[in-house]
């Protein structure tokens, strides 16, 4: 793309230097693994909420969602609204407080305490592999973006991302990640609002946008599309997305939940997740509107041959010099905020759930801090090496998404029963998780839409867990105290145990 001017380049380089400087400030606060992985349990609610959204929105979402809106219309916003908000509310009120009270570093660690070590191992390996593979994809995306917009060689773009994000994530841990996420989210919104204002000006305001689009695409302002829609059938959006995939993402995803585990209080943990619903509701302004502007201004002309070109087209054709650089910085910010969170979460899972639990159990805290940092560096190097491989396998991102939908439903069922049903046993949890993944595999092989795969694997996992639990010995009260909803609400002794756990005395 040839629309980048000197002022744009200046803005981009200034951002990269500023975020590097800002992120490394926090290295002096890192003395323990709790500092590194959980920000010393000092994060206030407003940082958590902005960090959650920064983590959630990646460059793929920008480009892919704008393309989705260009092709299917406002139905794309379901992923930000019904496919997120109710699940975030449930996560804030039901799941987050129990993870936080359990005093754990990871979701697999919670499952290990609630069920058994096998459930923890399976979840840790699945999430550990997923997060590490995702890094390579993110690095490749950053190289492509810098190449497309600035003309830099792809390898240079990958290296710049790796160096900037790697340095502040290795030195500052979750604190640096969360604080830079706040800055990055602000940049994303400034860039998105700039696009919205200029876009509306070009199309003649909201009424101009609606009349231009509905003239050729009357379905584009409908949130629910008919069942024969290949991508967004309304029943799948409700049962698959809203009831399963979304709760699984917002209640069980390590890179999302980890911010709440670093909260300074239980209220901050809950409020952080809940307040994130407000910026989340506005995300379609950033990711859906550009697709509409492209459709309204370019139509189905040959200028946009692939829907994913909608957003680059908007930047190239709508934004003046300076603003294009700002919006491009918003892309980089979106990408960085996802890369740093994935990096930190991958290091946390591999250090706490794999290394500390199965390789070296009784080392000093300093040892695990060093291991966490070494693993972070190793994952940066891995991401750089793995990134070009993703180019050789174009379907790899889709494959990763499919892998995620394989175990998201079963994971949600396992966590949901673990948190809410005291009768769920360790063997019920294990059977439900393994059986649910098996159901996913069978349905996936039968080429069922992934939204329905998620729903049926969730339902199957839930049923298997309940049946096996009812036929196996109940867990002793002392094992599950403080980890199950009903028990915490009623028992004063459990409250005391939780307080000890949270204060690190247990």
């Amino acid at each position: 793309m040839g629309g980048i001017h000197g002022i744009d380049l200046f803005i981009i380089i200034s951002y990269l230097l500023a975020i590097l400087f800002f992120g490394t400030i926090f290295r002096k606060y890192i003395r323990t693994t709790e500092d590194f992985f959980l920000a010393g349990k000092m994060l206030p609610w407003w940082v958590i909420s902005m960090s959650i959204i920064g983590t959630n929105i990646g460059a793929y979402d920008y480009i892919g969602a704008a393309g989705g809106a260009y092709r299917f219309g406002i139905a794309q916003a379901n992923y930000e609204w019904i496919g997120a908000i109710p699940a975030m509310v449930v996560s804030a009120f039901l799941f987050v407080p129990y993870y936080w009270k359990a005093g754990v570093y990871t979701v697999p660690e919670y499952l290990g305490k609630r069920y058994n070590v096998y459930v923890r191992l399976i979840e840790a390996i699945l999430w550990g592999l997923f997060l590490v593979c995702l890094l390579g994809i993110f690095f490749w995306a950053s190289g492509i973006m810098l190449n497309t917009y600035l003309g830099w060689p792809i390898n240079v773009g990958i290296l710049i991302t790796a160096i900037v994000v790697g340095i502040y994530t290795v030195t500052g841990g979750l604190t640096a990640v969360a604080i830079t996420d706040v800055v990055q989210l602000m940049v994303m919104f400034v860039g998105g609002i700039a696009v919205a204002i200029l876009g509306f000006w070009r199309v003649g305001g909201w009424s101009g946008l609606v009349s231009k689009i509905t003239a050729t695409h009357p379905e584009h302002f409908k949130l629910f599309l008919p069942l024969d829609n290949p991508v967004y059938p309304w029943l799948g959006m409700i049962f698959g997305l809203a009831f399963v995939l979304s709760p699984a993402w917002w209640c069980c995803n390590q890179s999302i939940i980890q911010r709440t585990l670093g909260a300074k209080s239980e209220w901050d943990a809950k409020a952080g997740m809940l307040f994130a619903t407000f910026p989340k509701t506005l995300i379609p302004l950033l990711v859906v509107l550009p697709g509409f502007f492209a459709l309204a201004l370019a139509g189905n002309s040959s200028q946009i041959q692939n829907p994913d070109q909608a957003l680059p087209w908007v930047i190239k054709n709508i934004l003046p010099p300076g603003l294009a650089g700002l919006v491009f910085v918003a892309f980089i910010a979106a990408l960085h905020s996802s890369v740093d969170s994935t990096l930190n979460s991958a290091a946390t899972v591999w250090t706490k759930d794999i290394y500390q639990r199965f390789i070296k159990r009784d080392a000093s805290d300093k040892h695990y801090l060093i291991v966490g940092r070494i693993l972070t560096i190793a994952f940066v190097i891995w991401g750089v090496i793995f990134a070009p491989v993703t180019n050789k396998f174009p379907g790899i991102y889709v494959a990763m998404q499919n892998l995620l939908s394989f175990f998201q439903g079963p994971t949600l069922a396992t966590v949901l029963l673990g948190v809410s049903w005291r009768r769920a046993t360790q063997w019920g949890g294990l059977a439900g998780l393994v059986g649910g993944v098996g159901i996913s595999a069978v349905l996936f092989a039968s080429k069922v839409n992934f939204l329905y795969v998620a729903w049926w694997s969730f339902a199957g996992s839930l049923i298997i867990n309940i049946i096996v639990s009812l036929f196996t010995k109940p867990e002793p009260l002392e094992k599950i105290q403080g980890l199950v909803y009903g028990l915490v609400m009623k028992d004063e002794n459990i409250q005391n145990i939780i307080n000890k756990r949270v204060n690190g005395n247990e």
Partner: protein
Amino acid sequence: MNNFWANIPLFWGKIVATLFFGGVIIWAWFRPKSYIFKGAPDNKVWRDLRIWATLILIVQIILYLVF
């Protein structure tokens, strides 16, 4: 069976979505006050997370009724 699903009007999507959002609001208000404020520095009204949840879910209901 497929015909049964295909014949359900799209309007039912809006009804299900509205009931879903409304159900989450009601569920949130069944959380005890002590549980909501646990860990909060004070019990000021603005810290009542059930109010936050209600506000954002009402916004969702409006969006799904409009579009």
